[in-house]
């Protein structure tokens, strides 16, 4: 079982190293290897593409957790202008694991709320690894109420391992904070669009994913519990998390089939997400399209649809 995304990337790393050697050699020997170099490059890209097209669910879990993926602040910078971040829950503190504020997207002012992980270990610690405490959910709650007051649509970006497991979080009512947010979003009188950008971890992610439309990046995942947790509880062996990742049907494609996700946005194979113009364009146009649709509906009709959307999830015999 691969431990991180680079385990299965080692093959390309080797080839890429060879390629760099070849390039260096061509410079130092003043020889023209350009056609060979082009060939090797093409071969590497083909291999990568082939590999990324056939990722296992566990590999997608590893990719979804990658800290090089864009975080909520990156998406805000990409999509919004004039963004102002707002802070604090007015009760206890300000949670760095959830960012929120107001900005302009596609000519409309919108409230944006999302989970925030750090870019490296130090940064990640300061954001508590993107695991919100009750303060984070209560800040989100407050910002949602503010959005409702001013009739402003809401965008949420989901990327968290889950709500923080901790003594303080329990003392301050983690479960109460999450349930309040679920209730609030389920009948918030403004349109809500959620984008699952990375790791959708359990109730801590769901708290911001009650929406009129749910979009999901192709390598993002959303799961009832992490594959590791399921493996340790159900199989008593955390090393079999890859089996659980497959069994949980946590990939974007599976969730689209289940009717939980509305649209999957394809990720590029070779580039960093935000460096790929096709990806940026399709993300932007997809949010625009859905936002235009939900904003043009009367709010009573939208709320009825939001309720039915949730109400119809579940499979059983009767």
């Amino acid at each position, binding site marked *: 079982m691969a431990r991180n995304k680079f385990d299965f990337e080692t093959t390309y790393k080797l080839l890429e190293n060879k390629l760099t050697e070849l390039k260096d050699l061509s410079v130092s020997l003043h020889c023209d290897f350009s056609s060979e170099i082009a060939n090797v490059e093409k071969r590497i890209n083909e291999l990568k593409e082939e590999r990324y097209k056939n990722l296992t669910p566990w590999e997608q879990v590893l990719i979804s957790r990658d800290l090089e993926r864009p975080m909520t602040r990156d998406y805000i910078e990409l999509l919004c202008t004039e963004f102002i971040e707002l802070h604090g829950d007015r009760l206890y503190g300000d949670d760095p694991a959830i960012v929120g504020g107001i900005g302009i997207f596609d000519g409309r002012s919108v409230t944006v709320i999302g989970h925030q992980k750090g870019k490296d270990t130090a940064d990640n610690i300061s954001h508590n690894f993107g695991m919100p405490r009750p303060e984070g959910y209560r800040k989100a709650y407050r910002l949602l109420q503010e959005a409702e007051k001013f009739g402003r649509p809401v965008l949420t970006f989901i990327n968290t391992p889950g709500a923080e497991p901790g003594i303080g979080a329990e003392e301050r009512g983690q479960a109460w904070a999450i349930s*309040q947010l679920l*209730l609030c979003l389920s009948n918030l009188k403004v349109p809500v669009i959620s984008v699952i950008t990375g790791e959708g971890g359990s109730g801590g992610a769901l708290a911001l994913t009650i929406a009129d439309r749910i979009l999901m990046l192709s390598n993002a995942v959303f799961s009832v519990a992490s594959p590791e947790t399921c493996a340790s509880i159900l199989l008593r062996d955390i090393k079999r998390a890859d089996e659980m990742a497959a069994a949980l049907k946590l990939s974007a494609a599976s969730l689209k089939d289940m009717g939980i996700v509305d649209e999957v946005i394809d990720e590029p194979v070779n580039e960093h997400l935000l460096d790929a113009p096709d990806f940026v364009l399709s993300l932007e146009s997809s949010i625009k399209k859905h936002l235009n649709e939900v904003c043009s509906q009367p709010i009573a009709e939208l709320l009825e649809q939001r309720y039915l959307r949730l109400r119809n999830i579940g499979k059983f015999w009767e």
Partner: protein
Amino acid sequence: MFKPAFNKKKTYIDLSGIKKSPLTFDSGEGNFSCPACSAWISEAEKIQNNDFCPRCSHHFAVTAWERIYSLCDEDSFDEWDDNLISYNPLEFPDYEEKLDKAREETRLPEAIITGRSKIGGVDVIVAAMDSRFMMASMGSVVGEKICRAIEGAIKYSLPFIIVCCSGGARMQEGMLSLMQMGKTSAAVGRLNAAGLLFISILTHPTTGGVTASFASLADIIIAEPGALIGFTGPRVIEQTTGQKLPAGFQRSEFLLQHGMIDIIQPRLEIRSLLVQLLNLHQGGSHGEKQV
């Protein structure tokens, strides 16, 4: 080198708070040890004592049907939706076997019983979860039955009362289970909009996705003494943080102290409390005088 015994500083454990009832050690056939105080009890003693430990009043788990019978007026319970059956939508390994085993052991179709009933003569919609059925985890059927019960409460304009216990969302149904949190919370939203009373009774243990959805959204939250109630389980918190958990962490008394629940009520007194609460909520708005 050994130090002389008389130089050793002695520290004594404070035993003043512990009840002085005798501890019995009759570990004969069918007897078991109380998980809270380790006293040996027989099944007969337990039943005689209304499912409490005779020594420390530990509340043993009771079945959903026992809950219904102990809370509702005699012969008033009309069960709903007992035809809803779980299957294995994700083809999750071993799920069918677990369901079969749970059905066989509990003789219940699923981990929750819902229906219409009377408590102290007042019509109510009532639900009770059963921890013997896969730790009363919430999958599609549990979520659906709760929603139908709430929608029934709205249809007949009745209060909704639920006795909760659960390990959280059911892993074997994946995201279908997790979404039940949103689904049940949305139904509570409609109950609120209809201005109807919602009482939740939290019993040992209520954790995870159930605590973080409908269970904590009630108008009035009652808990049984000593029940474990929280979001993340204590073992996971201990493992991930490496911190020693404070005494009584996530127990009902801890939650009352931190402002998360309204009342801690011993099991035998819950019915009378419900009758009183139902009466207080009748008659209606703006201080109209009750006759």
